[in-house]
């Protein structure tokens, strides 16, 4: 009996807490609802999100939905044009192009997410410290960022892959090295404006440490431009990773990776153009999804567009 009572009390308490939380965050929730309404009004952004979800589902469900295995070859079905058995035809080794594109989406999305998330982490650390402390630290860190920005990114990535060995892991590493400066710049810029705000002063007045202020106030308030940039960058990273594989610095010949598949198929362009055509269309569609979505987000988060 006593047990039941305590449970009801905590339930009451919980309800009270939720109500409190809802009241406290009322403006934020309203804002989010308004954003979602704005988002749903933009058909292109919704289309972008739909494409992203489609590719995520394809990547996750690949083992169950692909008619053929990742490296499954059928030597009697070499370079067959699209048909009911092979929607996108077969390649020079008798692999099913449709299935291989779906398997390839796993690698590409994985590379995209890992690179962008790592770039955001490195960029946040460097940009946050640089913008928050300013002065000589800022000067040094921004000069280092300048160096990386001035680098021809594709050439740098190629050199890193050549130095470390040609594999998908090294492509990711190379892209992380070339991608973080953009985020460092964005977060530094945000930090410069945010650190002058009254609430930062207030946080400092109540004894907030630098680390606390950076992680709890500065970074969360720099979030919206980072979200927009990272959505569009996901598409960009997928493109660049495919390009690196295409020129032979990533996945090895025969791998079910999009860039590699285009480059393996390029020599059969004359006789079986479907290999290159469908694989390239898949890359285009995936990147377009991220770009449409990111573009829509930018409109929503831009205060000018909210009027």
């Amino acid at each position: 009996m006593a047990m039941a009572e305590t449970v009801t009390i905590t339930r009451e308490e919980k309800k009270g807490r939720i109500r409190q939380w809802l009241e406290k965050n009322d403006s934020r929730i309203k804002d989010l609802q308004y954003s979602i309404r704005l988002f749903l009004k933009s058909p292109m952004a919704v289309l972008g999100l739909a494409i992203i979800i489609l590719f995520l589902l394809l990547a996750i469900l690949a083992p169950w939905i692909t008619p053929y295995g990742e490296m499954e070859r059928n030597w009697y079905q070499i370079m067959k044009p699209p048909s009911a058995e092979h929607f996108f035809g077969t390649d020079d080794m008798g692999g099913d192009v449709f299935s291989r594109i779906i398997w390839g989406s796993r690698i590409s999305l994985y590379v995209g997410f890992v690179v962008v998330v790592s770039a955001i982490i490195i960029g946040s650390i460097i940009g946050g410290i640089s913008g928050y402390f300013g002065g000589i630290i800022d000067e040094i860190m921004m000069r280092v960022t300048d160096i990386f920005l001035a680098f021809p990114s594709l050439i740098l990535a190629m050199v890193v892959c050549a130095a470390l060995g040609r594999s998908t892991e090294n492509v990711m590493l190379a892209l992380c090295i070339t991608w973080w400066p953009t985020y460092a710049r964005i977060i530094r810029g945000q930090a410069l404006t945010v650190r002058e705000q009254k609430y930062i002063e207030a946080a400092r007045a109540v004894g907030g440490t630098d680390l606390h202020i950076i992680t709890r106030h500065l970074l969360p308030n720099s979030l919206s431009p980072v979200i927009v940039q990272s959505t569009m960058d996901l598409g960009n990273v997928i493109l660049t990773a495919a390009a690196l594989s295409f020129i032979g610095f990533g996945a090895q010949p025969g791998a079910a990776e999009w860039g590699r598949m285009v480059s393996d198929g390029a020599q059969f362009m004359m006789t079986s153009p479907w290999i290159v055509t469908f694989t390239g269309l898949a890359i285009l569609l995936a990147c377009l999804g991220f770009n449409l979505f990111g573009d829509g987000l930018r409109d929503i988060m831009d205060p000018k567009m909210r009027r």
Partner: protein
Amino acid sequence: MKLRDYIIRRLLLLIPVLIGITFITFFLTHSIPGYDPATPWLKEKTTPAARELIVKQHHLDEPIVIQYFYYLSDLSRLDLGLSASEGNRPVVDALKDYFPATLELTITSLLICILLGIPIGIISAIKKDKWPDHIVRLFSLTGISIPVFWFALILQYVFYLKLNLLPLGGRLDIGQAPPTFSLPFIDVHSTGLYILDSILAGRLDILSQALLHLVMPSFCLAFISLAVIARMTRSSMLEALTQDFIRTARSKGLSEGVVIFKHALRNALIPTTTVIGLMFGGLLSGAVLTETIFFWPGIGRYSTRAISALDYSSIMGVTLLVAIIYVLTNLLVDVLYAYLDPRIKFG
């Protein structure tokens, strides 16, 4: 701050950036496994003793940090070393040969971007949220989403294999010698820019050949940046159209055409100019893929070959050249920006 002081300050700031770039490329390339740094000087008959001598002579036995300082001192004399992938000729000579090809390609692409991108952006802004705007938006986003290497292959398939309208690649037909000209008083017979050279030589047949060869690679390279310029023009046009002086102009009774082209566009072009400037560096970098696919003998293709051959003096030469051009165009853009918009202060 005065303009002159500003430029000097910026040029001085370039020095640490460029040293940083050489530092990173030097240590990266020297960590490539399986490359013998003595390669460019070795001949078939080089004996081990002679090899020792070469290693000593070029300080290849010194610690890598010391080697880096030797590299910097060579660099200050514009000596970039020998290129192993280019028959051991000096890297500087290779760059001199290949750079004009890339320059011709990027300038053509840039022109395509400007001539198509700005009008597309203006249309998009005037017809905001109507169907032309949506089409332009979809087109621009497709532009930045398209895999260049794939687009190039598709172009080749359609225009060379199927329609046979355009050449597959290269700068001129196979067997055609590059145009040379002779001018009074100047001892220069070719610039490496085939369009300019063929005009100066009065060879219209070579000119048309060179132009035909340029069509596919330059469109391919321009496509991405075209989208960016169109977007930039659109948003800065929209920004300009909300300004007070536009309302004033309209209330004066000026026609919509005058308001758009004379009042709004002139202000809208300022940010677009800067984007165009910044794009130049990006185009140089993007040329790597385009040049490789279209057999374009420029620095992009040279760098791919050099990296594949682990020829590190060439890699460093190309990287340095592209980086220098990138930072110099950045500087030029900033100066131009302040010139176009007198409200900007140097600092």
